[in-house]
């Protein structure tokens, strides 16, 4: 089981997979596949042919490893809502909360409150709800655009997490553990499936130009997976990827001569050192670097889209311009075979401890229209079937109010809640127009069909054709998984 030649653990992973599937392969080719996995942002076919044994991996095939079972989704767009969107104000209406408005409840949930000093009484939602679509799903007035898409959604109202503080809850939802240092969901997907476009990374992060989310780049790190699997940040303006474009003002001809010289010297170096596949990979990585420059720039070039399309995403409006741009880029990336696209918003606009009436509305205004446009656009292009769109944050909110210093109920917000979270899936093999799970009458906690974060992860992996227990990396002789050692169940009810 030891990984002998390459300390890189991905080669171990490949080998385990083969042992598990009882395929006979010789160690050399396995190593080379492992090596290939290392450079899984893709390498040229010519280099491939020299690197890989044809019997194991014929050139021309797509570049990703085989999934465990028939996938329903080819790629994922994760619309991450940092801060904890308030479920009882958006997607989980609570008439009983209205009835009991103003009653005391704090003492019953005192251990579940981040700011006990500021805890108020039960607080009804200030927003109106209505049923929409053929499925009749309830949506608050804050999301008029999403309301037109409900027949495409599988809404889960019963997700629960394990910590009521942002950082641990963010680590949990992104990596399955409350602590830093573990690979993120997107990194696991990249590790398991690789990319379909050899010129683009498998896992792309579209963060907000206005600033990073809480926990910053930790949200998309690769942890102990090979670093190639970490999320690559694409920027909407300027050079899309770090160091993608030369930062020195040298003539193109100079650059060309220099690159040819590097290639020449590396070939000489390699020729004198036979049996060193790492040197082939090294040469290939320079070839890829050149191609990535073109491919990434092309993917981010929104001038190729019609004005009408841009308008539908809200790119013409200041409120929706930024998020709309990222939603449209996300569609262009999945069109090009990027496996996992993750959208972030600066800070935590959903963390509405105060002024929920205006703050929550503002968060919805920034995102509602672009998200609806994305779902519509993916559908029209026939991409929604194979693209899993995921919406949700790291926690929910409490049914009691959180008071501001002057105890003015008009400025109230809601504190964190780990016991009830709304999240939805669309496309990628999920059921359309259904609601899964129930919360109690006040919306404090999920009570039926509870979904844990590992369940949620296992379901996303499942839709991609990956089994959460079989997707592991060998680390120090132990199998590390996204879902860890905790039991996880695929939420079969949301799968079409």
């Amino acid at each position, binding site marked *: *089981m*030891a990984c002998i*030649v*390459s*300390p*890189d653990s991905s080669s171990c992973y490949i080998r385990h997979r083969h042992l598990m599937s009882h395929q006979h392969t010789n160690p*050399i080719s396995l*190593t080379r596949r492992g*090596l290939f996995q290392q*450079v899984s942002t893709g390498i040229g076919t010519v280099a491939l042919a020299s690197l890989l044994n044809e019997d194991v991996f014929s050139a021309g095939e797509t570049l990703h490893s085989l999934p465990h079972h028939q996938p329903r989704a080819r790629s994922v767009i994760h619309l991450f809502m940092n801060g904890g969107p308030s479920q009882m104000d958006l997607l989980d209406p609570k008439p009983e909360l209205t009835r009991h408005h103003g009653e005391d409840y*704090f003492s019953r949930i*005192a251990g579940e409150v*981040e700011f*006990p000093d500021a805890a108020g009484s039960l607080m009804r939602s200030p927003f109106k709800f209505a049923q929409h679509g053929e499925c009749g799903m309830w949506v608050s007035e804050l999301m008029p655009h999403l309301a037109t898409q409900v027949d495409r959604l599988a809404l889960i109202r019963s997700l629960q997490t394990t910590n009521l*503080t942002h*950082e*641990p809850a963010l680590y949990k939802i992104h990596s399955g553990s*409350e*602590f*830093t*240092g*573990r690979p993120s969901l997107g990194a696991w997907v990249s590790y398991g499936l690789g990319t379909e476009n050899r010129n683009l990374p498998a896992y792309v992060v579209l963060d907000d130009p206005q600033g990073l989310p809480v926990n*910053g780049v930790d949200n998309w790190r690769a*942890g102990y997976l090979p*670093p*190639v699997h970490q999320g*690559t940040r694409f920027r909407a303006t300027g*050079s899309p990827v*770090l*160091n*993608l474009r*030369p*930062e*020195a003002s040298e*003539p193109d001809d*100079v650059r060309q*001569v*220099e*690159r040819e*010289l590097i290639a*020449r*010297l590396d070939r*000489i*170096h*390699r020729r004198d050192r*036979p*049996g*060193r596949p*790492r*040197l082939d990979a090294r*040469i*290939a*990585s*320079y070839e*890829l*670097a050149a191609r*990535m420059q073109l491919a990434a720039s092309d993917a981010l070039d929104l001038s190729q889209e019609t004005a009408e399309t841009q308008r539908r995403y809200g790119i013409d409006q200041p409120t929706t311009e930024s998020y709309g741009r990222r939603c449209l880029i996300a569609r262009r990336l999945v069109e090009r075979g990027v496996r996992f696209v993750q959208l972030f918003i600066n800070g935590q606009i959903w963390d509405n401890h105060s002024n929920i009436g205006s703050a929550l509305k503002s968060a919805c205004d920034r995102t509602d229209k672009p998200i609806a446009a994305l779902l519509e656009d993916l559908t029209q292009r026939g991409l929604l079937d194979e693209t899993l769109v995921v919406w949700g944050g790291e926690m929910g909110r409490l049914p009691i109010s959180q008071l501001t210093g002057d105890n003015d109920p008009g400025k109230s917000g809601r504190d964190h809640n780990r016991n009830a979270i709304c999240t939805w899936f669309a496309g990628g093999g999920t059921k359309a127009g259904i609601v899964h799970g129930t919360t109690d009458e006040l919306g404090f906690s999920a009570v039926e069909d509870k979904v844990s974060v590992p369940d949620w992860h296992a379901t996303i992996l499942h839709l991609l054709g990956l089994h959460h227990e079989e997707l592991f990396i060998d680390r*120090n*002789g*132990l199998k590390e998984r996204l879902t860890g050692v905790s039991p996880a169940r695929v939420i079969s009810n949301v799968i079409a």
Partner: protein
Amino acid sequence: MVEKLHLLNATVIIIACVVASAAVACVADEAEKSGAFYEAAVADIVTSRCLKCHAANRREGGLDLSTSEGIVAGGDSGVVIDHEKPEASLLLERIVSGEMPPEDEPPLTAEQKAVVRTWIEAGAKFRNPPRHRLVSQHDVIPILLLRCTVCHGTRRQDGGLDLRTRESILKGGNSGPVVVSGKPGESLLIQKIRDEEMPPRRKLVSVSVKPMTDSELKILEAWIRTGLPLAGDAPSNASIAPQTVRDDRRAFWSFVPPSEVTIPLVDDESNNPIDVFVAERLAARGLKIAPPADRQTLLRRVYFDLTGLPPNSEAVDESLQDAMPGDWKRLIERLLASPRYGERWARHWLDAAGYADSEGAQNEDRVRPHLWRYRDYAIRSFNDDKPYDRFLHEQIAGDELADYSNGGEITQEVYDNLVATGFLRTTPDRTFADITNFVPDRLEVIADEMQVFSSAVLGLTLQCARCHDHKFDPLSQRDYYSLTAIFKDAYDEHDWLKSQGPRTLPHVTAAERAEWERQVQQLNEEIASLQKQVDAESSEEQQAPLKTKIDELNSRKPAEPRIRALWSRGQPSPTYLLRRGNYLTPGDIIDPNVPAVLTTEGYVLQPTPPGSDAAVTGRRLALAGWLTRPEHPLTARVLVNRIWRHHFGQGLVATVGNFGTTGSRPSHPELLDWLAMEFVRHDWSVKWLHRQILTSRTWLQSSVILDSHDARGETMSEEERVSLLYGAPLRRMEAEVVRDALLSVAGQLDLTPYGSPDGVTEQPDGLITSSRTAAGWRRSIFVLQRRTKIPTLLENFDAPQMGPNCLERSESTVAPQALHLLNNAMVHDLARHFADRVTTVLADQLSAEPQAQIREVYRLALSRNPTLEEQDAAIVALGQLREHWRKKADATDDSAARNALGSFCHAIMNSAEFLYID
């Protein structure tokens, strides 16, 4: 009612039974009729097949199946029967999966399994229902520790009340007794909790406490109702653990002390035993140790190996002039004596220790302002060749070695001892904030520290045993919690020091403190004199510049020097095994001890407080003493193996952090044992190890193996060659070495060692770089290692994310590396500096011919002369580069020549040879 009881966890069972014992009899009648009693058939099976290990005298896994009470209570993994989910009942699950009885016993027959299943499905009833275990202090104290003792315990006794022991509970507080034995309803303690007055709801987060649950309150009530009985301590680890390791499991190679090795006689001209062991294995394939690499290659290899920097130009000149090999040993000594050696090798240790300059785990990722002292300590220790046994003592128990609290002078030695404990303060830690300082948050920190300790020092995956007995190795949950008990006087989840300010000590050396005081005083005097001038001036206009000056002086005041350390804080709270790793389900009380499999049977760690200070338990000192016994099966082997790995790219045991049964077996077991024993004999000297390795023909081998066949004509993979140690490995520089080498070649490396780390800055596009000093950039080990702000160049080349530590760095080959070296502005700048350096050197020699330039570039960057082929390619390229640069507006012949040389240097910095060490 009774059927239901089996479903619930053990603590609830106790309560329910105490509350409703009357219900048992009637249910028993029903079961009698159905004939589904334990005693009917299951008892025979259990008695004959399970009691060998799971009876009162042995209780493996904390499980006693010899009585109905024991069966209902379950073991360390929780309850074992659940009649609503028969298949999930551990008793059945382990039998069905074949896990129990263990391998060397025949499995149960299908019929026997069916009997057990039927019994559980029918309600798991007993004809003689279990008697109810009395609630004891061991059920109650863990609850009080969780919910009450932060204000009524070690550090605070609010209201004069201490709730840590039965005695102190009975004593009561300022308002009198808090319990009335036999009458929970009349006990103030119960009233306050039931009325939700305690713990005070609005203050919960400020003390990081959650309210008591109803079931916990019931246990407390039951204890008071039954008269606060004291149980004798449950059979503790000390009395039962050594018996739980079977002889065949003890016999696994890494749990057996290294044995004296006879050096085999092989026809070999080397007198280095390493070569003899290696040659022996090679001979089995009809091979011999490969010929040595050429001088220039070896020079480059040994420089990078020992110092992480390219050879200096004098050394290259010597080797090119054929003057070198002369004294290989002298060169090794020179490099081992270089301060650069410690900077290189401490980095390896810091990886294992999980070193970082920030807390992580919180968005702020707060900087740890003092931990750099530990980094410096590690560098100095390697440079001083501090014996490894001493090195471990200081890092595990430095506070117990040092007599620092009696007001005596803080010598360098005392300071070092305290700084060394930073080893146990490295992991991600969010407990500086109240909301992330609850007991589970603290337990994560402890778990990470245990993982760092056990993987780095013992080479074991002990973290697996936090929630259950290790699945593969003979490491029990008891072993895990007995180890945490050793550290408990410093890591007590019920008596916690928050992770920032309180974790530091002021005990820097007298000299450093005096210097700091002098600086502060000098500034204070200057400020005072300025203040007088201010007071003397009447107009604001004249005061303003003086005030500005005062502000400036105030900002220059250096912060108080402090040490981030770990120290004994007195008698800690008792350690309870946490069933399933869950802090809400405490099990048996556990004594401090070391893993049973690594000791002789019956071994009990015997801590002796080292000094007069009663607060010092001596537990960690005893642990260090045990670890560094010459016959310890793991300590020396694990370290020797990691040193080997850094010289050869792979350990003799490939899984450097796992010497357990799922780890690799040693490729050369006798060599490993020989090295381990000699290492100890040579006073645990790491430099001795380097000398032994670097003078072996094995290390000197060429990396160029043209023939990939063995003597029998069988093809050998690279893996096999590495495992046989046939030929030297080709290795890519680690992240820090890439950066340091680029800086060094460009003449921009500032070799100033030690002290506060250099800051990092993040550009709007996310690029992170370190700050420049006046003389260039310092070595990477002196750059701030903030978890969320790893310099991009280092991150691209696999600088690890410490989670919680890193024993084996991955070596990836990805496009961002190429993009960084090709396009990054700083790399371009360094290439221009490199070109200027070449020009300066050649200016002295008055020969600026392209050939001379190319030779100089090769000499400085690659420590050799170019071949003819390379030189030809380079001459053509230089010509073209000059031509293209000349076409640029404003270009002159001179600027074109200079720029062309810069581009050529940039190409060499991008070449594979620059990055890969032969």
